[in-house]
């Protein structure tokens, strides 16, 4: 577990450096296109990179919570959920995370934050309605393990960075269509035409690369962690049948999630975009952020 925490910290640092370089490059290109290069490009580059790295560290959890539509709930509104979260925080020896509910029918949950002192757990409305207390404890135990292992920090940073990368690559290609195109008309020279073409190529490259890179990064941070969080969560509740039964209910639930998107898929308890009942196709396995739910159930049953 301590190796896991150390590995997570290393990966987070590496990821932030990569993100800084990536956004710096894009910022410089935008500056070059709009403000004719030089100092302006550099300023934009540094500004963007700083904003993204500091933003994803300090406000990543708020960004993720907002993007999923999660609302904070009080103990009076959701006494059972609050009691279960507090109980498992006691079991894990960490402060009680903030408690959120996502207005979705599909049963699912995620944890986000920076460290155990700044963490939040969000569950969907559907999960609350569908699960009994023991199943809810299983789910919250799984999320509490993500908090303990610092999976939440890297997961949240990945979500913010991937989200920003997708956004930036879109801005960039649009920039070319408008700004870049106009610029080559203005100067009219052959050099500018070639430059514009190169920028277009880079733009296309980034457009393809950003989501793909995001996907690869997400794969590297998810999958095995889910098995681990299942196992550790059960160590907290000391009751595997609770989580098993919760996962079975999730596998059988007929609803897909509305709030599902590429940037946050890896954070959820179970992959939100999955079509119910179909988790055996090779292509899906390749691009899954989560292991097949039946495998997770099987491993828990063997404990």
């Amino acid at each position, binding site marked *: 577990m301590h190796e896991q925490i150390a590995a997570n910290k290393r990966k987070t640092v590496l990821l932030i450096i990569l993100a800084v370089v990536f956004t710096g490059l894009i910022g410089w290109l935008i500056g070059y296109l709009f403000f004719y290069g030089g100092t302006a490009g550099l300023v934009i580059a540094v500004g963007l990179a700083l904003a993204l790295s500091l933003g994803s560290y300090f406000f990543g959890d708020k960004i993720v919570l907002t993007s999923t539509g999660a609302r904070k709930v009080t103990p009076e509104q959701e006494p059972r959920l609050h009691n279960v979260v507090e109980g498992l925080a006691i079991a894990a020896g960490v402060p009680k995370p903030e408690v959120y509910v996502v207005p979705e029918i599909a049963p699912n949950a995620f944890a986000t934050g920076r460290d155990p002192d700044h963490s939040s757990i969000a569950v969907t409305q559907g999960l609350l309605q569908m699960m009994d207390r023991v199943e809810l404890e299983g789910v919250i135990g799984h999320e509490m393990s993500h908090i303990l292992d610092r999976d939440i920090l890297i997961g949240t940073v990945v979500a913010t960075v991937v989200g920003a990368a997708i956004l930036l690559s879109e801005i960039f290609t649009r920039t070319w269509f408008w700004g870049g195109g106009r610029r080559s008309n203005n100067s009219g020279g052959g050099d500018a035409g070639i430059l514009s073409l190169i920028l277009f190529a880079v733009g296309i490259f980034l457009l393809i690369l950003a989501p793909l890179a995001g996907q690869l990064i997400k794969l590297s941070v998810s999958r095995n962690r889910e098995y681990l969080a299942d196992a550790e969560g059960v160590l907290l509740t000391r009751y*595997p049948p609770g989580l098993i039964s919760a996962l079975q209910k999730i596998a059988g639930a007929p609803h897909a999630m509305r709030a599902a998107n590429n940037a946050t898929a890896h954070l959820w308890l179970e992959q939100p975009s999955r079509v119910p009942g179909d988790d055996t196709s090779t292509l899906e396995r390749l691009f899954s952020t989560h292991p097949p739910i039946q495998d997770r159930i099987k491993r828990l049953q063997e404990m």
Partner: protein
Amino acid sequence: MTAAGWIVIAVVVLLVLWTIWAFNRLVKYRNRADEGWAQIDVQLRRRYDLIPNLVKTVEGYAAHERETFEEVTAARSRAENAQGVAGQADAENAVSSGLRQLLAVAENYPDLKANANFLALQEELTGTESKIAYARQYYNDQVRLLNTAIQSFPSNVLANTFHFAPREFFDIEDAVRAPVQVEFEGQ
């Protein structure tokens, strides 16, 4: 300096480093055990606070079950004044059995079971019971780590020198928690 001299220095440095590490580890476990006990105390107090409300609500529907009410109230005040880990555990077991009887009484009154106030109290009690169980689990885990460090060689030398005392485990029955706890090997 000779090779032997360097070796002596290296051994001394390693010994000092180990002592610092082992001492800090003992302090960490002791503090966590204290934290765990404080958390148990918080949750037990919540349970004491719930009992009068629960008794009052059930009384409204089943006034003649006076014996049950008196028993749980008496157990509660004994528990509040209990001394030591084992004494506290005995007193809490009496509270748990009193609460079980109180809930068994409530089972016979469908109107009571539908009462919103009673349902809220029942959720609070279930929540508190499971928090007591989780606090106990955390405390016992930390006590196990502390006691192992105090008893095993070579950290026992350090523990004896600085008077680290082993702690008692805290074992009580749950009043309402339904599922049977599964014990893990080596946990």
